[in-house]
């Protein structure tokens, strides 16, 4: 009996030790990890960046290497947001587990949510060099919390080889400034034996990009656009009688009419768009400059592509008919909760490196194909789509994209747009659904 009792105590204490040691060893691990991050171990300062632009992950890793060579005391690690996850989701999980990265690449609309946890960056030098309006949306109570990384724009991308052939000569994009002239171009492309365009039916494209033109096109003055959004929330807007909404949907009807996927408009995928456009099977695709890497892998037009605005009326002078929608879409913020002052300084140094060092600028513009949001960077965009956007911006022909819409806007409005695209609802229903969304939305 005694033997059994001894055995029992032995097992009991063994399990206890196991449990305790399991807990304590993980505690010890995080401590030593933090120690490494603090740089107290003499190995330099270690900082991390959560990257939510997955298409530039390899370029960012290269940039991190170059940055480390220029600043041997700092090593930068790039963590990707897992496929299909949103940066907000990933970042909030990392915060919940007490292990946030030093820098996080967020979408514009999310920055405000993190404001208690991130550093006020108003004192940084690059604030003065940022392009107009780039910091408006991340400035809260007079303090700017985020670094504007990339300008992105969208509209109708045209394949110059196809449209040149269709119009018989050198195509001039400025001739497309009304719904009628756009339809005419579609007809010409069809007459030349190609299909006019492909409408990619993803909810984010239709909801966040196409439909938000209806808000942004209300007025050139952003305060009036914001007032329009407030009215939508308050249920004071009648979309069905709104001029911009109707004009935009008229254009959409034209797009539907010439869509290559008319037979099953919802079956298309994102991957189909760049393939059809690049191979020249269609002349036009509604998308943004981020699609360049995919288009270029199918390119048959000798890299000659450009943007056309999305017309919202038949009056060429109306706002939106000659403007391309663009805005800063990705922002980098710096954590202040768990990062040490040294890490914060290192992160700031990295941001400065991007803006002011020749190597950093080269990474941003030439390697990552990003349109920078800084006036001092004079390198021209490396790809035709970026060039086209830059051209519109420099001529003052740009419209601010809506980048602080509620987080579930794209999914809900996108679903309503898909329904309309599949002809399962009409314009009255669409207007009603969107008004309903806005009166029910949180905040």
């Amino acid at each position, binding site marked *: 009996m005694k033997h059994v009792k001894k055995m029992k105590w032995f097992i009991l204490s063994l399990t206890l030790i196991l449990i305790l040691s399991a807990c304590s060893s993980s505690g010890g691990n995080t401590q030593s990890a933090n120690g490494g991050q603090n740089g107290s171990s003499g190995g330099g300062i270690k900082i991390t960046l959560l990257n939510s632009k997955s298409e530039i992950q390899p370029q960012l890793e290269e940039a991190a290497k170059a940055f480390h060579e220029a600043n041997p005391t700092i090593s930068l690690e790039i963590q990707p947001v897992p496929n299909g996850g949103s940066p907000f989701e990933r*970042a909030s999980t990392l915060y919940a587990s007490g292990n946030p990265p030093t820098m996080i690449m967020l979408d514009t609309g999310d920055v405000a949510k993190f404001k208690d*946890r991130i550093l006020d960056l108003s004192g940084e030098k690059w604030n003065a060099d940022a392009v107009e309006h780039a910091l408006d949306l991340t400035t809260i109570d007079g303090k700017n919390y985020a670094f504007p990384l990339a300008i992105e724009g969208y509209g109708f991308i045209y394949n110059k080889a196809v449209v040149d052939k269709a119009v018989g000569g050198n195509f001039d994009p400025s001739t497309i400034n009304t719904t009628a002239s756009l339809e005419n171009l579609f007809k010409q492309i069809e007459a030349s034996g190609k299909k006019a365009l492909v409408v990619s039916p993803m909810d984010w494209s239709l909801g966040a990009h196409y439909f938000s033109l209806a808000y942004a096109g209300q007025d050139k003055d952003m305060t009036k656009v914001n007032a329009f959004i407030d009215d939508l929330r308050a249920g004071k807007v009648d979309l069905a009688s709104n001029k911009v909404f109707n004009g935009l949907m008229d254009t959409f009807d034209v797009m539907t009419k010439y869509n290559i996927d008319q037979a099953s408009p*919802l*079956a298309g995928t994102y991957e189909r768009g760049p393939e059809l456009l690049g191979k020249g099977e269609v002349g036009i695709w509604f998308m943004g400059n981020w699609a360049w890497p995919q288009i270029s892998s199918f390119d048959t037009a000798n890299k000659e592509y450009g943007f056309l605005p999305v017309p919202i009326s038949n009056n060429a002078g109306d706002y939106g008919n000659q403007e391309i929608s663009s805005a800063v879409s990705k922002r980098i913020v710096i954590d202040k909760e768990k990062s040490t002052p040294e890490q914060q300084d290192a992160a700031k140094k990295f941001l400065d490196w991007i803006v002011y060092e020749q190597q950093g600028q080269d990474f941003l513009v030439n390697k990552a194909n990003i349109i920078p949001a800084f006036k001092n960077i004079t390198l021209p965009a490396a790809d035709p789509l970026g060039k086209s956007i830059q051209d519109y911006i420099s001529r003052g022909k740009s419209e601010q994209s809506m980048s602080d819409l509620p987080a579930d806007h794209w999914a809900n409005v996108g*679903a309503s747009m*898909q329904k309309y695209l*599949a002809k399962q609802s009409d314009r009255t229903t669409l207007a009603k659904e969107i008004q309903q969304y806005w009166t029910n939305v*949180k905040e």
Partner: protein
Amino acid sequence: MVTDKGVWSRLRLRLLFTGPTLFAFIAVMIVPFLYGIYLTFTNWDGISTTQSLVGFQNYGSVFKDAEFWKSFGLTLKYVLFTVVFINVLAFLLAYLLTKGLKGQSFFRAGFFLPNLLGGIVLGFIWQFIFNNVLVFMGQKMGIGLFSTSWLSDPNRAFWTLVIVAVWQYAGYMMVIYVAGLTGVPGDILEAASIDGANGWLKMTRMTIPLMVPSFIVCIFLSLQRGFMVYDVNLALTKGGPFKSTELVSMHVYQKAFLSRDYGVGQAEALVLFLIVAVITLLQVYFSKKMEVEA
């Protein structure tokens, strides 16, 4: 030996055996569950450092969230069809494959195979089949039903979910039914044949009543999986076209993480939990009553 010792001593012995499991269970099940219930009373958005208590407001929003009830209704429809089809098909397969057919263990393994694939992979495979393979065949052979993708039609997209679920689980349930069928004693069936019972009578009067435990398990499993399905829904239809196939788990996830309405999402999850718990408990309670002894 145990009874003559004090309370502490007995507790210690029990803790020795159940302690580690209990610790894990409390840490990963009970604590998150209680914390989740607490979150339903707050207006947390998932990231802010502050949150305020809002009482039962979130539960009010659950009952006002028309989308939630719509997707719940759709889920009920989905569960009804999947439970019926999975079990009917699984039983038929099991019946055929206990008849002593040639190569029956090969067929058993074959039907069980889909269950070894993860839901996400399976969803992508079937997405390819419905979007490309069937459409290609439909167009080449002029079959109108298949010439457009099933996934882009709200009604047919629902049936793709049912088809994939049946394909995935029928084999699994079949294994349970095979075990049940082979467990029916041969002597009573033989006695029944001597008394002049035909095959149908033996099936309905002897085999099925004796197999009630297998039915309980299979219906319980398919009910619970039907209500909780998320992976196939995500990979196959993503809730589309235009949210028409968004089942309730997906809606809850979207509410919490996409709309950033953690409190309401959590409250919806709790309401869902209660409903599913009641339904499955009722099912087990009533079918237990149907059990008989040989």
